């Protein structure tokens, strides 16, 4: 349907006002919120995510597109809840305690949302208790932690230890990322996966929840 393509194109270009207008128009044509989400908004984000992966667009463009998608999402959110539409999975995210560098985490959050995941963003400088509370209250499928500093990345292990002591480790997948993080570090601390860049974090999450 042409309107889905238009929504996707406008999301990709980051034209928030047009996305809002087209989403409202689609609803007025009795198109379901779920279809608008998966055939329009998510497709637009998938296009920009793919471009980002292939080095064909710039980071701020991904975030501008994410704003456009969120504006469309706001319009259909109440209807999605009414129709009980399920997301691809729930991901709790944050940069670990002591680390205020949240750019990478924000980009991953946007790309995950764009891929149809529900993201609970705990923000930056997140203590383990806050991660735990979010995992419990949201019944999250995945917890994603980010750190830019070698001094703060050590905290990831503390979060994993806390999940174990609370009996939640087997119920939630743990993924980590950030400049100093390596695959071997992820293995050492017992994470389920590590992503070297934002685009791979989405593939990793999809793979873990298959």
């Amino acid at each position, binding site marked *: 349907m042409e309107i889905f393509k238009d929504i996707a194109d406008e999301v990709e270009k980051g034209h*928030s006002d047009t996305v809002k207008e087209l989403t409202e128009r689609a609803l007025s044509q009795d198109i379901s919120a779920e279809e608008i989400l998966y055939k329009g908004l998510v497709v637009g984000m998938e296009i920009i995510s793919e471009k980002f*992966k*292939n*080095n*064909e*667009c*710039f*980071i*701020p*463009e991904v*975030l*501008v597109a*994410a*704003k*456009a998608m*969120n*504006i469309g999402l706001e319009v259909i959110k109440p209807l999605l809840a009414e129709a009980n539409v399920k997301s691809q999975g729930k991901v709790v995210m944050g940069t670990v305690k*002591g*680390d*205020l560098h949240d*750019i990478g985490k*924000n980009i991953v*959050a*946007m790309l995950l949302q764009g891929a149809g995941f529900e993201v609970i*963003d705990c*923000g930056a400088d997140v203590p383990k208790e806050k991660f735990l509370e979010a995992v419990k209250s949201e019944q999250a499928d995945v917890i994603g932690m980010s750190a830019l*500093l070698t*001094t*703060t990345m050590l905290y990831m292990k503390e979060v994993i230890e806390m999940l174990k002591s609370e009996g939640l480790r087997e119920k939630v997948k743990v993924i980590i990322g950030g400049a100093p993080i390596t695959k071997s570090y992820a293995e050492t601390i017992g994470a389920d996966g590590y992503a070297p860049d934002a685009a791979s974090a989405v593939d990793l999450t999809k793979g873990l929840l298959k």
Partner: protein
Amino acid sequence: MESGNIPILAVNEDTIPAAYEKAIREVWENGASIRTEYDRPEDPASKDATVIITVREPFSQPRFHRSFADGLGGLAEYVMEVVHGAHDYWVKPMEEILKGTQSKDTRWTYTYHERLFEYRIEDEVINQISLMIDRLSRAGHTRRAQAITWNPKLDPPTDDPPCLQRVWGRLCDDGEGGYVFNMNTHWRSRDLFKAWFENVIALTTLMRKIAEEISKGTKKQVRLGRYVDISDSLHIYGSYFREIEGDPEKGIKSFFEKLESRSFQERTWDSDFVKPYFIDDGVGKGLKPMLEREKEMPEKVRKAIEKELRLMEKDDYEV
């Protein structure tokens, strides 16, 4: 690098994004391969040069390149950090800074605003930007209007000392009864690919603030002149090479192919496009979300940012 000499490169462009692209190309093609403290063993040596970049019209449009390592809301927050001290409260106490790498406190050792506006020396706190404004307002031709960041007691023991070293400014007559404010910034070391652009947006915003204050003090029109940016070591880290070179086998474009595949207009934004994202980028960053999120921000700083927000909401204010 021939005979151990670091190359010296010069870039002269009208706008910030044009200068940014030219500088990346210059350092990539003509920089020397030198290792930095941040290169990992598996990374190639960084590309590096001493570079002097002139932006003839720092507020000319388009002012924003689309290639930088954050979103527009994040960039706005960084501008507030440099110009209004939004994150000075994240700087750790002096006794912790003096512990150098032994400090367990992960807060910051400095912000540019803190060093430029609240430089700590002995028992005094000095607002160097205010001194610059006073000195230039009294005698625009002075060569002594400058603000430094380096603290020889605090910085050498830390892992991440300031890159910006000095801001210098001077006024010249514009021939019409007003002044032109010229500003230079001097940098010890600089990540060209992922920090230069954001630094320059913030520093040129500071440049405009200084010019506005001088204008108030002298009651004369103060136009912005050229902005000159001098880095001892302007580099592209080895860890970025994959992003710059792309991967032809996997169909991943190089950075330069990405630039060439679009017009200059399609790889930049003007201030009108950017302004709403500076106010609120819709994904948790920007002035409004920042004021909402950062409850511990001191009241004085909050008020300054609120004022900035009101200015941005006016149509005639350029970010």
